């Protein structure tokens, strides 16, 4: 490899204006003017092809901007770059949607929350909030009283604004219509049985064929990131279970890991074992629900109930220890809420023995069914390049041939001690996305089986100070959620509540690629695509 020089030196070589900032995980600070050049170089010359996370930040005096967490999927190198614009009134950054397709939606989110204008972005509408929302809520100088409870219906806005750079360095606002006058546009959602929650697609049809698809998010936007800024660290934990409610364990694991990393706290082996086992049980739970919902979307109601029957067993085990079935509230800063139930080990072993033959049943009824294969094979193909570019991690990415498992890329918990396969398939179609998840259930069973007998003795909750304050700095940690990389970006100013807390949604990249993969598919295919992408809406909207 010729890129042996440390990444820091290479970035300084590309862009001398970039300054390394040590606090926390460390990141490069780049002035807004020179950011675009650095981004292009990082993308094309250095091969940082995966935008892990894009976080809008308000740094007060230093200005508004974004933090880009990048990864080179070839070498596994990571770098964080922050670009700030000091002009608070008219903050603008060059858009990088053409370098990383996943940036498209993330920039809309940053625009929505911080009012940063992304020059060159083709469709800079608000992503979550209403179009008539006043002000930008995650700015530190935002005035709550600007937006009283609004009882008016939201006007449908069919224009997409974009800011285009002019020759003199300024920019002008242009508007493009989303749909033509004569297009047959139907609403799928926000109340629709197949969107798995309040997600809304506006679909332009030609007969049954989808010509264009526009995703509307925000129907369950609760402003969790904003809420977190006024809460102490232990209080912020409560929100994670309500993001991706099928990945409650993993989400909370990610946030606890991030805070523990910032505190410099090493948790005991017992805690790490318990957390890992719980994560995997949660993954089985989520994947079983995935099979159930996919089959229901496709009209095979029998498999729906089979999925729920088996998921019940997992939930019973989780409930016995955590007391919760959907909202587990189990992980805590420095450990877990309670020690595992005395029957836990026995029940988990029984479940593993029960589950293995049941998977065969799914294959017999669902996987092997000719209609299932006809409908799933070859539909909704997401290429490997697109998967990386959109940042579509999890089962979706792995079905497209991208080995994107955080458990392998950045091992946490005790994943480095267990032996498991990362399921990677090549076709990127709906059938592979389904198969990846079914096979991952087996792998999760293997992981749990290896760990369940070896849970070491030790503390289940480390001693922490009653009031947790983090040092100044910023940290990012990620876990493999049930449906992709779930990341937490935490920025602290030394206070007892976070200065900025951003959750990298697992679902947002998945819905951002729907338009690409469902064009020229049929309505029925859209349902299958939505089912196999396996997004959870509260996780998208946060």
């Amino acid at each position, binding site marked *: 490899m010729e890129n042996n020089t440390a990444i820091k030196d290479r970035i300084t070589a590309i862009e001398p204006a970039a300054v390394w900032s040590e606090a926390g995980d460390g990141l490069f600070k780049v002035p807004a003017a020179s950011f675009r050049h650095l981004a292009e170089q990082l993308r094309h010359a250095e091969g940082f092809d995966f935008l892990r996370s894009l976080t809008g930040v308000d740094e007060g005096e230093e200005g508004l901007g974004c933090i880009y967490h990048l990864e080179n999927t070839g070498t596994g190198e990571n770098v964080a770059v922050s670009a700030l614009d000091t002009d608070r009134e008219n903050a603008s950054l060059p858009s990088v949607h053409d370098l990383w397709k996943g940036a498209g939606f993330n920039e809309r989110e940053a625009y929505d929350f911080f009012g940063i204008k992304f020059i060159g972005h083709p469709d800079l509408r608000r992503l979550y909030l209403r179009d008539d929302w006043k002000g930008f809520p995650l700015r530190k100088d935002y005035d709550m009283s600007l937006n009283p409870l609004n009882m008016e219906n939201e006007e449908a806005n069919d224009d997409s604004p974009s800011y285009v750079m002019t020759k003199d360095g300024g920019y002008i606002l242009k508007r493009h219509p989303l749909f033509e006058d004569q297009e047959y546009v139907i609403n799928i959602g926000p109340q629709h049985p197949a969107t798995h929650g309040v997600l809304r697609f506006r679909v332009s049809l030609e007969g049954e064929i989808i010509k264009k698809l526009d995703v509307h998010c925000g129907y369950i936007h609760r402003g969790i990131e904003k809420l977190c800024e006024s809460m102490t660290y232990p209080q912020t934990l409560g929100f994670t279970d309500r993001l991706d409610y099928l990945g409650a364990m993993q989400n909370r694991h990610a946030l606890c890991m991030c805070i523990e990393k910032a505190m410099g706290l090493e948790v005991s082996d017992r805690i790490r074992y318990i957390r890992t086992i719980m994560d995997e049980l949660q993954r089985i739970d989520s994947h079983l629900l995935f099979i159930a919902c996919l089959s229901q979307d*496709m*009209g095979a109601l029998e498999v729906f109930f089979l999925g729920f029957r088996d998921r019940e067993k997992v939930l019973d085990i989780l409930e016995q220890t955590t007391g919760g079935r959907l909202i587990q509230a189990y992980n805590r800063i420095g450990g877990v809420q309670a020690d595992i139930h005395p029957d836990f080990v026995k029940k988990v072993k029984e479940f593993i023995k029960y589950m293995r033959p049941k998977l065969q049943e799914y294959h017999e009824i669902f996987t092997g069914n000719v209609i299932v294969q*006809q409908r799933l094979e070859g539909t909704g193909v997401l290429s490997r390049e697109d998967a990386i570019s959109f940042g579509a991690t999890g089962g979706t990415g792995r079905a497209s041939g991208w080995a994107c498992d955080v458990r392998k890329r950045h091992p946490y918990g005790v994943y480095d001690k267990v032996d498991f396969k990362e399921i990677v398939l090549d076709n990127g179609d709906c059938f592979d996305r389904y198969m990846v998840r079914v096979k991952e259930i087996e792998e999760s069973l293997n992981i749990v089986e290896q760990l369940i007998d070896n849970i070491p003795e030790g503390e289940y909750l480390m001693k922490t100070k009653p009031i947790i304050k983090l040092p100044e700095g910023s940290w990012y940690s990620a876990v493999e959620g049930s449906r992709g990389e779930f990341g937490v970006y935490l920025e602290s100013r030394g206070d007892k509540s976070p200065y900025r807390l951003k959750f990298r949604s697992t679902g947002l990249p998945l819905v951002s690629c729907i338009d690409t993969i469902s064009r020229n598919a049929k309505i029925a295919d859209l349902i299958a695509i939505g089912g196999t992408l396996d997004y959870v809406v509260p996780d998208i909207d946060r």
Partner: protein
Amino acid sequence: MFDFGIWTSWIHSQLTALMPEGLAIFLECVAIGICLLLMYVVIAIIMIYMERKVCAAFQCRLGPTRVGPWGSIQVICDVFKMLTKEIITVRHSDKFLYNLAPYLVILASVMAFACIPVSRGLEILDFNVGVLFFMAASSIGVVGILLAGWSSNNKFSLIGAMRSGAQMISYELSIGLSILTIIVLTDTMQFSEIVMRQADGWFIFKGHIPAVIAFIIYLIAGNAEVNRGPFDLPEAESELTAGYHTEYSGMHFGLFYVAEFVNLFIVSSIAATIFLGGWMPLHIPGLDGFNAVMDYIPGFVWFFAKALFVVWLLMWIKWTFPRLRIDQILTLEWKYLVPIGLVNLLLMVVVVVFKLHF
């Protein structure tokens, strides 16, 4: 085999003794109409109850258990609930057609229902081109569905209606071809005659290979004809919310719902009549003792047993198989079922001409 014709002709003779013949026939028509509608409703209730129990059994559930023994009163309660619900009319819909559509669907269903020979002497519409009439009457339903989808001024409904139109008109062909295959074997189109000719063996046995192929084609096409899974695209609930009847409420929706279930029964009972001997008991030529024992079981028991068996088959398929896609449905029909049906018809002609059947 008991002939219910004895009763009906006795009633007729009693009535004509009392009043002029025209009035007697009029009264008989009214009575028969009421009986027909009552039976229609009872069958619908039985079918809905059966659907709930059968699908519960397939899905590791129990189904209704609370109202009445084994939940048997549940459906009746639901019918009353449906009757009391408000019928909502959508603004900007075509009011006349919107209100007409459910009645067209139920009309087609009742007319087709009247063709079914339940037992010997218990057939209402029975004439020499009964099969043709049945095909014609049952085809009216698609008009109602198209109107429902079009007049409710809802894009989902319209897509559902278009799917339904494409699907039902296509699959009518296969139904026709498979019934035609049996007509070649029987040389009659009268339902009562068709049943009578199966006294020495049901057609699925007498016609052997071509009859079995026709039976399978009929089951597939019949399933598609009544818009049930895996062919339930017109009302694919996960794609089009409820398809063509999205905008209907109360009893207007109830009519669609009831018609769907009775149509399932009609399709099954026609399958039972044409292929499985209708009310004719199982007769094996040569075993006279066995045949005599079989004759003790009344005809309508045979008929309902066979029809409900076919219903159960179709329910099993519905609750297990996922839904097809619109292009796959049309491919299945036009590229597979129709050519196979045509070849099968030819095969049956060969079988009949060379007397290869039993």
